[in-house]
């Protein structure tokens, strides 16, 4: 396992941003492609360029909930930004602009993060409250709908939006002890979900594989670091289950970009290179693949395009350059090859259809 990147200082591979900032709670992409965005523990949002130099006016109380709760999600879509905390959320227009130009609508409901969906929608994981979608239905209204969890019986912990080659919109979600659920999605319509459960598996994250020829492929992660590799979340009912013994700690996040799969645990960041091989109609888990680990204690990770991985630490942010990482892994290739302890190609899964109901309401701007 590699040493902590903090011991090496800034390198081609790693750069420390906002060093000494202990108040950050979220890090990720800003709107467009011109920098990073950060959330703080007292509910503010701020922006920097790619080198971590702050610009613009910070946005205080970005969830408009008056509780100063930590920002746990920020997403941008169609000119809007949604910021969430566990006690509130709000949708903004011109969030990055001057304070006098900003407009906001308080959504009010706490959430476990938000992702940009399709058609300008935002999807929010409401834990035991279900899944909420927010979109601008007219210039004067923000519409939301909730698939309530009492009927779904899921603790919606993370969600991801995927788009098929035929343009079908799919939402997939990781549910604590409830499996992985997926369904066709259209803002305002009923969301009918199918859940796949593995006995005793505690799912804590799900992400796109980032493979353009398999747009509905996804990785799901359990709290004990088992990775499920779905070729197509809508049809694959026997995803490969992969487990690496050398991944210690409690698993927190999984993200994928290009040929990289990143698994953050309570003790380290693990990078798996070319976990799956994809070609026309061919999607296969590779049993011997290069991997590397960095010892660090991080709060969260976030991808910015296919270029950066941001690692949120207790006192700043590490920026990992994915191009440099690919070069690093390509050198001494054989020394870095490892194999998963187990690959189950035919796991026992329980499939169930979830009853969901929706409630719509509109927020007047």
């Amino acid at each position, binding site marked *: 396992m590699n040493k902590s990147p903090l011991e090496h200082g800034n390198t081609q591979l790693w750069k420390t941003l906002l060093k000494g900032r202990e108040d950050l*709670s*979220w890090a990720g992409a800003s709107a467009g492609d011109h920098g990073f965005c950060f959330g703080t*523990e007292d509910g503010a949002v701020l922006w920097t360029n790619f080198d971590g130099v702050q610009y613009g006016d910070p946005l205080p109380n970005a969830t408009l909930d008056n*509780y*100063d*709760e*930590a*920002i*746990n999600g920020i997403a941008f879509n169609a000119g809007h930004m949604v910021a969430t*905390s*566990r006690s509130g959320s709000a949708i903004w227009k011109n969030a990055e602009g001057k304070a006098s130009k900003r407009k906001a609508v308080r959504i009010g409901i*706490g959430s*476990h993060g938000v992702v940009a969906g399709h058609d300008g929608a935002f999807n929010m994981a409401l*834990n*035991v*409250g279900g899944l909420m979608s927010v979109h601008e239905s007219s210039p004067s209204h923000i519409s939301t709908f909730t698939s309530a*969890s*009492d009927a779904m*019986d*899921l*603790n919606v912990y993370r969600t991801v939006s995927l788009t098929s080659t035929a343009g079908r919109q799919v939402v997939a979600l990781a*549910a*604590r*002890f*409830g499996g992985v659920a997926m369904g066709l999605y259209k803002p305002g319509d009923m969301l009918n979900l199918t859940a796949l459960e593995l006995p005793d598996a*505690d799912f*804590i994250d799900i992400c796109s594989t980032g493979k353009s020829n398999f747009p509905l492929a996804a990785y799901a992660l359990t*709290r004990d670091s088992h990775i499920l590799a779905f070729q197509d979340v809508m049809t694959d009912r026997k995803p490969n289950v992969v487990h690496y013994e050398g991944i210690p700690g*409690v698993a*927190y996040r999984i993200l994928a970009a290009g040929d990289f799969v990143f698994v953050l645990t*309570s003790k380290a960041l693990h990078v798996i290179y070319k976990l799956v091989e994809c070609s026309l109609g061919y999607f296969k888990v590779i049993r011997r693949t290069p991997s590397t680990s960095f010892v660090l*204690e*991080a*709060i*969260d990770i976030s991808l910015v395009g296919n270029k950066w991985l941001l690692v949120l630490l*207790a006192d700043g942010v590490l920026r990992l350059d994915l191009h440099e990482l690919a070069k690093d892994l390509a050198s001494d290739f054989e020394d870095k090859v490892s194999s998963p302890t187990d690959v189950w190609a035919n796991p026992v899964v329980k499939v169930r259809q979830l009853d969901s109901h929706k409630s719509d309401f509109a927020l007047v701007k």
Partner: protein
Amino acid sequence: MDESKPYPGPTQFSGHYYQMTPKHHGVGGPSASRWDVSPDDEFRVFDTGDFYRIVDYKGKVYGVWKVGEELRSLGTFDQVVAIFYPPSPPDRWHGHPLFPVRSAAPSVMKRQRMKPSKQVLELLEVAELVTHVQRKRLAKGDHP
């Protein structure tokens, strides 16, 4: 030990007496939060929270069970933080696992949406009952 009886000793710091209520040991039915640790360990979580003064503005005490660097599950729905309520005399303190609640929890429990405040999480960190990173993750609603 019969779980419906009062716990024999008081807490070290405040001298609070504790009652393990049947409601939170299975008698309360599926809608009640239920302990999944021994009576001694349940009291230990309360005693530790009282010792370090993990108290909110209403006087409620909060506790966790730290094993090494990890937080142990306290309840049947994987809660890692417990809450303890001050009694009306002559009753005793009682408590139950609180946060977070996993999916299979009954809807009554889900609707309660109870969570420790930001200030309570900060007290847990100051007392070193959770690490800095665990506190920051809990404050976001992440699992520790």
